[in-house]
């Protein structure tokens, strides 16, 4: 029941907002649908905590501790972003950057995007997982090009082609898994794509085919995670689309794509019994962290800066999943949560800061704290959190990952530390003059909604100081399920 509500609400929302998305009250309706989705996700979580894993609709959907926590996170950030987008999109309308037709498209696609992510997370069928991931790209392409500027069209095209090609590789990987599984699972072939069945027989799957499959899957879904050197689409799509979309792309879509990679890794590792998948994940992760840290120095556009910071954090998380084992997986899951919350909070403040300055160029954003203390403090605290300052949750997660790395992969620790230091200096050096310094900002026609920013940051702070026992238990279960060495 909760489950039907969870997937049904965004679909109903997309249909309804496709018709009424340009009305005066459409932003509120959008937020309302997201709230109902969030409530359904909470109810589902309560049920999973009480009764354990659930299989729905002839085993086509599967909910366990790993995905239920991501479902809740996705629904929560989806809801707060809808709250943020209310005043944000109204300001954009007043500034004349949007027509009512495009606002309707925006609202309908926002709900559809939420749906595809929730479908990707809850489906048990790795074929449907692919379909949902492709759907997530398709529903956001037209949002990236929403402003129809030359730069946004370029970003949209890059996003479409790179992710399209990437995801085609992932389809081939999926076909290969199906091929390996059909021999073992048998039956009418229907069950040979169900993750739970595959997980049960993973040790019997043919290792050579599975290792070829994993290369294709990692490259395919890795493109969407934004792992270097496949990350080219990411900064452009983040910088050129409307800010609420940057927030959900960075905070949610990257997580969902990484979720797909991890699900596949569990199967392949079980089949191979070797270190190959872990090593590949660690390699991609490290390259992403280092490249992103270097690119951070060159950025002039504030949204590109934080997009590269997302590449960096995804690299760290991928590295942690690569190390595997209960502690590293726990840290990776914690990092996924806090990164998602912090990064979306940062994008909320960045969106309003850019609207106030009338530009996304960092040289033109100055003195936020004088004219609007909430935006200034939001950006400052958010940046402190994202570069890994204690006592925020990102620090706790990174600390856990680094200490585990020292024990398991000592060679990687100095590289990680150096990259984190470089990233810290790059981000902080840029943010400081924007927050302080002489003001150039102007008044906004609609008061910004900054409550989500502080709610997110408060949760991140709390997770840095104290992870509630039920949440910790939940992470721990998921971490054990993901396994690894």
């Amino acid at each position, binding site marked *: 029941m909760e489950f039907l509500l969870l997937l049904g609400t965004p679909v109903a929302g997309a249909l309804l907002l496709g018709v009424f998305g340009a009305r005066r009250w459409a932003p509120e309706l959008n937020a309302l649908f997201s709230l109902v989705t969030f409530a359904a996700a909470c109810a589902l979580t309560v049920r999973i905590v009480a009764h354990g894993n659930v299989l729905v609709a002839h085993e086509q959907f599967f909910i366990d501790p790993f995905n239920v926590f991501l479902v809740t996170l996705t629904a929560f950030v989806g809801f707060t972003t809808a709250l943020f987008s209310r005043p944000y999109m109204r300001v954009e309308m007043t500034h004349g950057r949007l027509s009512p037709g495009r606002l309707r498209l925006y609202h309908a696609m926002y709900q559809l995007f939420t749906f595809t992510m929730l479908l990707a997370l809850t489906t048990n*069928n790795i074929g449907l997982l692919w379909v949902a991931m*492709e759907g997530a790209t*398709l529903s956001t392409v037209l949002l990236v090009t929403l402003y129809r500027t030359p*730069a946004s069209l370029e970003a949209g095209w890059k996003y479409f082609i790179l992710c399209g090609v990437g995801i085609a590789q992932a389809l081939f990987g*999926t076909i290969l898994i199906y*091929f390996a599984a059909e021999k073992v699972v048998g039956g009418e072939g229907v069950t040979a794509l169900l993750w739970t069945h595959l997980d049960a027989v993973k040790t019997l799957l043919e290792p050579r085919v599975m290792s070829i499959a994993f290369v294709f899957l990692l490259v395919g879904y890795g493109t969407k995670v934004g792992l270097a050197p496949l990350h080219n689409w990411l900064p452009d799509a983040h910088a050129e689309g409307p800010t609420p979309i940057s927030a959900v792309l960075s905070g949610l879509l990257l997580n969902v794509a990484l979720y797909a990679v991890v699900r596949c890794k569990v199967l392949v590792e079980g089949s191979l019994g070797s270190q190959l998948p872990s090593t590949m994940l660690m390699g991609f992760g490290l390259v992403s962290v280092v490249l992103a840290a270097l690119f951070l120095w*060159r950025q002039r556009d504030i949204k590109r800066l934080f997009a590269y910071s997302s590449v960096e954090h995804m690299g760290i998380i991928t590295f942690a999943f690569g190390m595997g084992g209960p502690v590293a997986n726990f840290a990776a899951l914690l990092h996924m949560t806090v990164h998602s919350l912090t990064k979306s909070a940062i994008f909320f403040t960045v969106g309003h800061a850019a609207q106030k300055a009338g530009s996304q160029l960092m040289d033109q954003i100055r003195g936020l704290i004088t004219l609007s203390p909430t935006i200034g403090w939001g950006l400052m605290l958010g940046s402190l959190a994202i570069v890994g300052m204690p006592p925020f949750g990102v620090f706790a997660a990174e600390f856990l990952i680094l200490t585990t790395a020292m024990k398991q992969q000592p060679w990687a620790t100095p590289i990680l530390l150096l990259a984190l230091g470089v990233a810290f200096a790059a981000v902080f050096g840029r943010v400081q003059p924007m927050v302080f310094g002489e003001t150039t900002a102007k008044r906004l026609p609609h008061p910004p909604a900054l409550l989500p920013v502080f709610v997110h940051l408060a949760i991140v702070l709390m997770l840095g100081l104290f992870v509630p026992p039920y949440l910790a238990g939940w992470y721990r279960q998921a971490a054990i399920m993901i396994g690894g060495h």
Partner: protein
Amino acid sequence: MVHVPLLLQLVNTCAAGLLLLSFAMLSQRRVVTLVYLLATQGALLCLATLLLAWRTHQHHLYISAALTLGLKVMFLPWLLHRLIRRLDVYWDTEPLLNTSVTMLLGLVIVVFAFGLAQPIAALSSTAARSTIGIAIAVILLAFMMMITRRKAMSQVIGFLSMENGLFFGAMSATYGMPMVVELGVALDVLVAMLVLGVFFFQIREQFDSLDLHHLESLKEKP
């Protein structure tokens, strides 16, 4: 001499045709011809599916063939043709590599593809397992076409040809994916093309051309 039944020989002929068409697309610069080649590739894929369905009595392959016929032989080429006429893009400019180099690289790719297919084909028990190498070659050749072309339209045709290769691969290795997935994939391809249609008009409106060198300003500046 191993005896191969007639039906399978026909499937193998279709597979050879698919590969040949991939090479033809690689060297073709007239966009309308590219669309015809793509449609022919779709038709061969459909025929191969039908033959396999007939031989193996896998009924879902008939539906798959019908899907291919409707989507890849009829609807998408029609849509692309319409877009070409409306947008007036008949010729692609000189590709990044000249044709003979492209062809030679294509040959290397085919050899590599057959190497990659060996462990998979060795395990497969389907009737058409010998064609898995061809499917991988079609995918990689389409990939190369996307890399070397400049016009948005040719890249999209490369993308669809890659999709053909993927379908053929799924069919020769496992007699296709389960119906839910196949329908989902078809839906995604359809939506992708519709989104692209909208997208092309946006690009056109903005740049007055579909040449992708207009779309090269977002780079990391040194």
